[in-house]
């Protein structure tokens, strides 16, 4: 008998391509997670065997992708309402809810178990915490309920360097918490700058982003406040030995630019120039975080910092 399936079986699949399942893992978020995890892994004291480092990074990336898939499974209803997300595999019907849930669950559990078995269980526990926090705390609990969603949910995005650090050392340290804190403080101004431009999208989907709930003026105030906390915090690695001379200089100068752009967002409130200011801060915030981590990564790779 040739390979055949019943109609019911065929309907259980959305008929998605391999590319749809890759999209389900949010590859762009995955690459960011990979990059910050790599930085944590390389910046951690002691040498790690390159094969183990690679295995750790693969597990972390898969874990991040799995939580992306679970997030898309849970948020399919609101993704369908926003222009930015309406073409994702679930709202467009190429992958069924059941497929996404299975895919995400299997990869979540698999990535944690593999990381524990191959590298160490502290890193695996932190990876499980990251995935759990993103799904249960951010996606299911906070995202639709409170404008503080991204403040607390941002912790999920801030964990990866700690997971990388734990993969290398088996422990958590002050410096790894510092990497966490920088991403944690960076998240609110980054996302609120985007939310200022996309307020109507979030409004339509009923997501209580800060500009929707508290208005753009309060959002601008909060962006400025977090920026004032972030800029000095991001220079601290230069004093703990985590960052070297290059990091000290760059974090100081870029921190000033970040503050100036945040002040622009605070000051310019009307029409197209206000949108432009918010977009500028949003784009710069990505460059800022990327460069800070890239410098820490480079300084440790080339031995430009004492003690590594």
């Amino acid at each position: 008998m040739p390979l055949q399936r019943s109609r019911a079986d065929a309907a259980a699949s959305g008929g998605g391509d391999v590319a749809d399942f890759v999209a389900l893992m949010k590859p762009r978020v995955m690459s960011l997670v990979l990059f910050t995890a790599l930085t944590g892994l390389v910046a951690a004291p002691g040498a790690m065997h390159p094969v183990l480092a690679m295995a750790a990074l693969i597990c972390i990336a898969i874990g991040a992708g799995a939580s992306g898939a679970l997030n898309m499974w849970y948020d399919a209803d609101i993704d369908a309402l926003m222009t930015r997300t309406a073409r994702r595999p679930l709202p467009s019907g190429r992958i069924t809810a059941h497929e996404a849930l299975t895919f995400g669950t299997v990869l979540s559990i698999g990535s944690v178990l593999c990381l524990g078995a191959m590298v160490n269980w502290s890193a695996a526990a932190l990876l499980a915490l990251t995935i759990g926090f993103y799904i249960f705390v951010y996606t299911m609990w906070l995202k639709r309920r409170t404008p503080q969603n991204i403040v607390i949910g941002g912790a999920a995005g801030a964990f990866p360097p700690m997971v990388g650090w734990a993969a290398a050392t088996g422990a958590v340290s002050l410096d790894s918490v510092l990497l966490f804190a920088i991403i944690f403080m960076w998240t609110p101004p980054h996302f609120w700058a985007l939310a200022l431009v996309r307020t109507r999208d979030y409004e339509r989907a009923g997501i209580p982003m800060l500009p929707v709930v508290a208005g753009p003026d309060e959002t601008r105030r909060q962006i400025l406040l977090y920026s004032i906390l972030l800029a000095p915090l991001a220079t601290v690695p230069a004093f703990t030995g985590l960052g070297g001379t290059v990091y000290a200089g760059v974090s100081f100068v870029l921190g000033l630019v970040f503050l100036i752009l945040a002040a622009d967002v605070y000051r310019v409130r009307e029409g197209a120039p206000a949108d432009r200011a918010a977009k500028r801060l949003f784009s710069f915030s990505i460059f800022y975080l990327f460069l800070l981590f890239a410098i820490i990564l480079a300084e440790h790779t080339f031995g430009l910092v004492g003690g590594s």
Partner: protein
Amino acid sequence: MIRVMELDDETRRKQRKRSIAIALALGALALLFFIVTIVRLGSNVANRPF
């Protein structure tokens, strides 16, 4: 009664691609576990007591 029907070519092609992707992923995982095992044993492989 179970009704069995042919899948159309497009669906079957995608299904086949998914199956191959899963096979490759499982193969890669097995290989990774093998290499990591060798690395973790390291020089101790030579230190067997017999």
